[in-house]
C-alpha cells in the first residue's frame, strides 16, 4: 500500500524558508503569490494490507520520526 505524509510547521512557528521564497517570488514578478509556508512531503510503501492498521502504523511513525511535534503537524494520506 502506498501512502503520503505531509509535515507542516505549526502556526506561530517561524518559517524562514517560506519567507525567503516569498521574497524571491516578489523579485521574480510573482507579487500575487504570497503566504508561502514550506513543509516536507514523503512517499512511502507499506507492507501492511489493512488500511486501519496501516494508518495506525503511520501515525505512530509520524509521532516518533517524521514530525517533530513540538514544531510540526502532520497529515497522512493513504492510497486505498
Amino acid at each position: 500500500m502506498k501512502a503520503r505524509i505531509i509535515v507542516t510547521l505549526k502556526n506561530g512557528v517561524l518559517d524562514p524558508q517560506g519567507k525567503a521564497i516569498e521574497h524571491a517570488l516578489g523579485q521574480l514578478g510573482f507579487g500575487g503569490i504570497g503566504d508561502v509556508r514550506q513543509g516536507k512531503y514523503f512517499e512511502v510503501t507499506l507492507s501492511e494490507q489493512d488500511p486501519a492498521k496501516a494508518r495506525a502504523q503511520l501515525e505512530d511513525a509520524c509521532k516518533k520520526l517524521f514530525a517533530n511535534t513540538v514544531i510540526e503537524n502532520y497529515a497522512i494520506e493513504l492510497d486505498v
Partner: protein
Amino acid sequence: MKSAVIVYPGINRERDLARALELVTGTAPYMVWHDDAEIPDVDLIAVPGGFSYGDYLRCGAIAGQARITADLKKKAAKGVRVFGVCNGFQILTEIGLLPGALLRNAHLKFVCKEVKLEVVNSRTAFTNAYAQGQIIRCPVAHHDGNYFADEGTIRKLEDEHRVVFRYAQGTNPNGSINDIAGIINEKGNVLGMMPHPENLVEPLHGGLDGRGIFESLLETVA
C-alpha cells in the same frame, strides 16, 4: 573526571570535543559508538557536533532513534551530566531532554564565525568558572541554530534562569529568540548550546575562552 563522547555516524567534531576534554581534565574520554547498548559510568556524557545521519529529515532526528540514545535518556534522568554542542544540542531537543527546537538560520545560510557570548547564568555546574554576565568569545558553525520555543516555554526558561548563554548584543548569528545560545534543563544536569567552546581552548586556537565550561565541570566533580 571521567567522561564519554557519543559517536553517531556523521558526527564530525567528536575529536575536537575529546581533545578539549582531555586537555582540561587530563583524562581522555571514552568514545561510545551509537550502536552500543550502554554508556560507561562517567561524570559527563558529551554529545558532539557534526551532521549525525547527514542531518537528513531534521537535524538530530535520526540520532534520537539510535540504540545508545535510550541509555543517554536513562542516564540523564538519573542525573548524570549531559553536555550537547551544536548537533548535540539539536539531538537533546529532539529527544526531549531540552525544550524547544532549532530551526534553519534566519538568513538560511550556514554560518561559521566567532561571536560573543554573555554568560547569563554562571551558577550552573557547566559555567561556574565564568563570572556572571561575563562576555566571552566563541566560534559558531551551523546551519540550523535558530532557537525556537513557544511563548510559554520561553517565559519559563527566562524566569527560571535557564538561559545560560546569550549571543551578546549584535552578534546573534541565526535569529534565535531572545538571542538564546544555550539552555539548561530544570534539574540543571543537561546543557545544550549551539556555539563550539571546544574550538577555543588552546593558544593555537587564538584564545582560551571556551575552557571555562570544561573547567567548571572539573571543579564541580572534584
